[in-house]
C-alpha cells in the first residue's frame, strides 16, 4: 500500500474507534437541528425557510468539533515527527488527513442531512440541493479547518482559538451552500451558487495542504 493510503486508512480507523468522533459529530449535528425548532417555534413554513442555513451552519460547527485533534493527537505522542520523517511529503500528509477528516465527518453529516431536512419540512428538490451542496462544500470545511488545526497544534487551548480563526474564512461556503438551497426553494436556478461553492471547495482543497504543511513544519521546530 502506498504511504498515502496507509495514513488515510489509519486516520479513518482512529476516528471510528477512539472516542468515535464521527458519531459525536453526527449527534451534535442532529442535536443542533433539534434545538433549532425549539428555539424558533414549530411553524413548518418558517422551518422550511431556515432549514438550509441552519443545517449548513450546524454541519460546519459539527465538523469543527473534531478538527482541533486533526494533528494534535499525533503531535503529542510524537507520531507526527515520524510521519514527517517518512518519504511522504508533508503536503500529502496534510491532504491525507483532510481526506480522512472529510470521510469520517463531512460525508456522514451529508448522508444524515436529508433525514434532518425532513424534520424541517424542506421540499424534496431543496433537500436534494442541500445534500449536493453539503457533498460539494464540506471538503472545504475540512481543508480550511486543517490550516487552523495545524496553526494551533502546539497550543493547549487551541480548540478555543480554532473557531475564531477559521469560521470567518468559511463564510463563503456557508453563503453559497445555504444560498443554493434558498434559490431552489424559491424555484430559481441554483447552478451559479453550486458552481461558486464547488470552485471555493476546489481551491481550498488544492491550496490548503501547502499552508497546513508549512505550519506543521514550523511547529515541529523546522
Amino acid at each position, binding site marked *: 500500500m502506498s504511504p498515502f493510503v496507509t495514513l488515510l486508512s489509519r486516520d479513518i480507523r482512529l476516528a471510528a474507534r477512539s472516542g468515535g468522533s464521527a458519531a459525536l459529530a453526527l449527534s451534535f449535528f442532529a442535536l443542533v437541528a433539534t434545538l433549532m425548532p425549539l428555539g424558533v417555534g414549530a411553524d413548518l413554513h418558517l422551518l422550511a425557510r431556515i432549514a438550509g442555513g441552519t443545517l449548513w451552519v450546524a454541519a460546519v460547527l459539527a465538523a469543527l468539533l473534531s478538527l482541533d485533534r486533526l494533528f494534535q493527537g499525533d503531535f503529542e505522542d510524537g507520531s507526527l515527527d515520524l510521519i514527517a520523517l517518512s518519504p511522504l511529503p508533508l503536503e500529502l500528509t496534510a491532504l491525507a488527513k483532510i481526506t480522512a477528516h472529510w470521510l469520517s465527518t463531512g460525508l456522514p453529516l451529508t448522508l444524515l442531512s436529508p433525514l434532518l431536512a425532513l424534520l424541517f419540512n424542506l421540499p424534496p428538490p431543496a433537500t436534494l440541493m442541500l445534500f449536493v451542496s453539503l457533498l460539494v462544500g464540506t471538503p472545504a470545511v475540512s481543508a480550511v479547518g486543517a490550516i487552523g488545526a495545524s496553526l494551533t497544534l*502546539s497550543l493547549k487551548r487551541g480548540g478555543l482559538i480554532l473557531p*475564531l480563526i477559521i469560521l470567518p*474564512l468559511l463564510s463563503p461556503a456557508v453563503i453559497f451552500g445555504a444560498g443554493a438551497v434558498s434559490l431552489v426553494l424559491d424555484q430559481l436556478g441554483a447552478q451559479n*451558487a453550486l458552481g461558486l461553492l464547488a470552485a471555493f471547495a476546489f481551491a481550498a482543497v488544492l491550496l490548503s495542504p501547502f499552508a497546513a504543511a508549512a505550519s506543521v513544519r514550523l511547529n515541529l521546530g523546522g
Partner: protein
Amino acid sequence: MQFLFRYANPHEFMRLSGRILPFAAIGAALCLCVGLFLGFSAPPDYQQGRTVLILFIHVPAATMAMGVYGAIAVCSLLSLVWRHPLSDIAARAAAPLGALFTVLGLITGSLWGKPMWGTYWVWDARLTSFLLLLFIYLGYMALWNAMEDETRAARATAILALVGAVNIPIIKFSVEWWNTLHQGESIVSGKLAPVFLAPLLLMMAGYGLLFVTLWMIRIRTAILERRARTLMQAN
C-alpha cells in the same frame, strides 16, 4: 529590495523612524484638524443633511481598515519569504490598529445607518464583510497572543495573514452575492461635490498619517522592549 533590507536593521530603522515620526505626527494633526474644520463648515447635503459629517470619519476609517490588512499581508510575505526580521514586529504592531479602524468604521457606519436606514444595523454587504474582517483581525491577534515562542508565532501568524489575504476578496465577493440574493438596502451613489471632496481627502491623508505615526511608535516600542529583554537576560 535593497532599500527594504537596509531598514531591516533595527538600528537603522530606529534612526530613520525617529526622524520621520515628528513630521508624521504633526502632519496627521494638521490634516485631521483642517479636514474636520472644513467638514463641519461644509453645507448640509441635500439628501443626507448633517449626517454627511459622519462620512468624513467613517470613509477614511473603512479605507484604513482594508489598507492596514494589506500592510500586514505584505509584512507577512516579507517575513515568510525573506525572513525580514523587522516585518514580524511591524505586522504584529499593525494588527490592533487595523482592528480599531474596523471597529471605528462599524460604529460610525451604524450611527450613520440609524438616521439614513432607520436602524443601527442593516445586513448590508459592506457592513457584513467588515464585521467578518473584524473577526479575522481578532483571530490573527489571538493567535499572536496564544503562542509563547515569538519566532514560531511570527511564522504561524504570517501564514494565517496570507491565507486571510487570499480569502478576503472571496469573502467580499460572496457577501455581495449573498446580499443581492437577499435584496438588501441599496444606497443611491452620486458624484461627490468638491465641498465634500476636499475635507474627505484631507481626512484620508490624516488617517493615513495617524496610522503611520501610531504604527512607528508601536514598532519602536516593540524593538525597545526586545532590547530591554535581551539586556535583562544577559545580566
